[in-house]
């Protein structure tokens, strides 16, 4: 369905081209039809950039994005416009994802007006259907975004996206600005929609609990690189990379009572901050914060290799 190969984005700042931010550096993964890949990592690690690169909202420096075998990076503007309806993006803040000057009905209708050849009545009919799918009522559509709650607006965003009949949805922290109770509703809605319409998700999040519910596979990102990727169960029960272990530990430490698999993760507590992406450490990017650091970590960047079925880790000591 979606294959990402060696995706790379350097942002150069100002006149000094050498001083570039390596936001995304050689990221590769696959997402199958009807599957969800969870992309996790600390803030600033490049998760969001990956999503935007796949959508080609920004242009990658290098790499391939194959969508059903079509290389999106090679498409020209017109071809891109034709294929864009099939992949859609959900953003973090639902309130700013909708035009504040457009009524809800107009926002949901917009994709139908831009694509497809619906008549006015058909569009109105379709809007009502879509609103129903996402669990809103006809009473909501004549309002403006500021008159709805964050959760309701995120439902509107979903309705708008479903109007396009997409195959792939890139969800960039779709619930992190919502209340916990509303979060659950939106996540359930997304899961239901996935089942009904056989959608694929790239689910970007920093919240491991949320990813665990949603994802079939998890990719862990650190400073622009994937350090570990594998099935959700493998990641939660037998994480190999010290960074993944540290993330899991950090998440479980906050809820001492949790008794299932995640409760006895071995690992370390991360110290210090993520190094600046302006000058990424030589060798393994994680070596400064890694307890198992050896000489080889300073000089050689670890290759990613398979430790189990579909479970890849990039570390010298696994």
């Amino acid at each position, binding site marked *: 369905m979606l294959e990402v190969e060696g995706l790379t984005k350097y942002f150069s700042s100002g006149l000094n081209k050498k001083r570039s931010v390596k936001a995304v550096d050689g990221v590769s993964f696959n997402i199958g039809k009807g599957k969800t890949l969870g992309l996790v990592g600390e803030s600033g690690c490049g998760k969001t950039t990956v999503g935007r690169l796949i959508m080609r909202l920004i242009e990658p420096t290098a790499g391939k994005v194959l969508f059903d075998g079509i290389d999106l990076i090679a498409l020209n503007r017109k071809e891109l416009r*034709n294929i*864009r309806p099939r992949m*859609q993006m959900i953003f973090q803040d639902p309130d700013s*994802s909708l*035009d504040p*000057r457009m009524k809800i009905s107009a926002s949901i209708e917009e994709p139908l007006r831009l*694509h497809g050849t619906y008549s006015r009545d058909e569009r109105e009919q379709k809007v009502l259907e879509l609103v129903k799918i996402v669990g809103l009522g006809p009473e909501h559509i004549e309002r403006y975004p500021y*008159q709805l709650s964050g959760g309701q607006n995120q439902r509107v965003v979903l309705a708008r996206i479903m109007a396009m009949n997409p195959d792939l949805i890139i969800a960039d922290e779709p619930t992190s600005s919502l209340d916990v109770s509303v979060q659950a509703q939106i996540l359930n809605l997304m899961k239901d929609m996935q089942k009904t319409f056989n959608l694929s998700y790239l689910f970007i999040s920093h919240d491991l609990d949320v990813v665990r519910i949603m994802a079939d596979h998890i990719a862990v990102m650190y400073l622009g690189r994937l350090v570990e990727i594998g099935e959700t169960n493998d990641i939660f029960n037998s994480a190999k990379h010290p960074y993944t272990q540290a993330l899991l530990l950090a998440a479980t430490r906050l809820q001492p009572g949790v008794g299932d698999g995640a409760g006895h993760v071995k690992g370390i507590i991360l110290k210090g901050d993520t190094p600046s992406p302006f000058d990424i450490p030589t060798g393994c990017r994680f070596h400064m914060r890694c307890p198992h650091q050896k000489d080889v970590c300073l000089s050689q960047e670890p290759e990613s290799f398979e430790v189990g079925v579909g479970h890849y880790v990039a570390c010298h000591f696994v």
Partner: protein
Amino acid sequence: MKKHNNPFMDNIRRLSDSRPATVGAIIIMLLCFIAVFAPQLSPNNPTTACLEDRLISPLTVPEYPLGTDHLGRCVLSRLLYGARISLIVGIIVVGISAMIGIALGVISGYYGGGIDAVIMRFVDATLSFPSIFLAVTIAGLLGRGLPSVIIALIVVDWTAYARISRGSVLSLKETEFVESARSLGASDCYIMTRHILPNIIGPVIVIGTLGMAYVILSAAALSFLGFGPQPPTPEWGAMLNAGRMYMRTEPYLTIIPGIAIMVMVLAFNLLGDGLRDILDPKKTVIE
């Protein structure tokens, strides 16, 4: 508080909560009424000179409520007709400047890069001259008359709209709803007209209202300096200039048009400030 289902009505209601803005709006409506019905309201023909009745003081003769000028023309009639010219100049200049400025500002902000650099350097160059000096130069080059005043003021005025709309576009184009429209496959033209324009209209209305005040004042200044409509056209700035000669003996000839200019400018400033307050997104969020 009851929520209207219409942001426009909402804004009208909030505007009426602000007393200065309400006063400004009422004065402006009154001035528009005067301008439209000047022929019906005027007691005399504003351009008919009657040298026998020259320099009559206000409130002395019922035929000339505000007296007459040095050529015996009715000051009140000239004042009422003068409102027409000031408002028309203001509307034309602000309207055309805003259209040019918004178009260039939106393009500049949306595309960035080379186009942006060219347009903005042009704006900087225009702004580097004192505006009234630039207007005087252009009006001087084009010759006397109302059209040259209008053109001169447009040349000076459009930059404000270009700057404000460019700034708004720069922040808007990064917003998620614009990105989401792009990912729906919308064209640049569609995004600019359907998503960006409606969202920059707020600040532009504020600048436009305050700009009316500035344009009316500048137009009066240019007329005062003799670049504006030529005699016997009734224009407030020109009336001021004509009255200048008689300032010692007949001060009302300068005071009356002066007050008229002040009231009109003040009204637009009051309304503009009120609009700025209610259209300020931060205040909207608090409510």
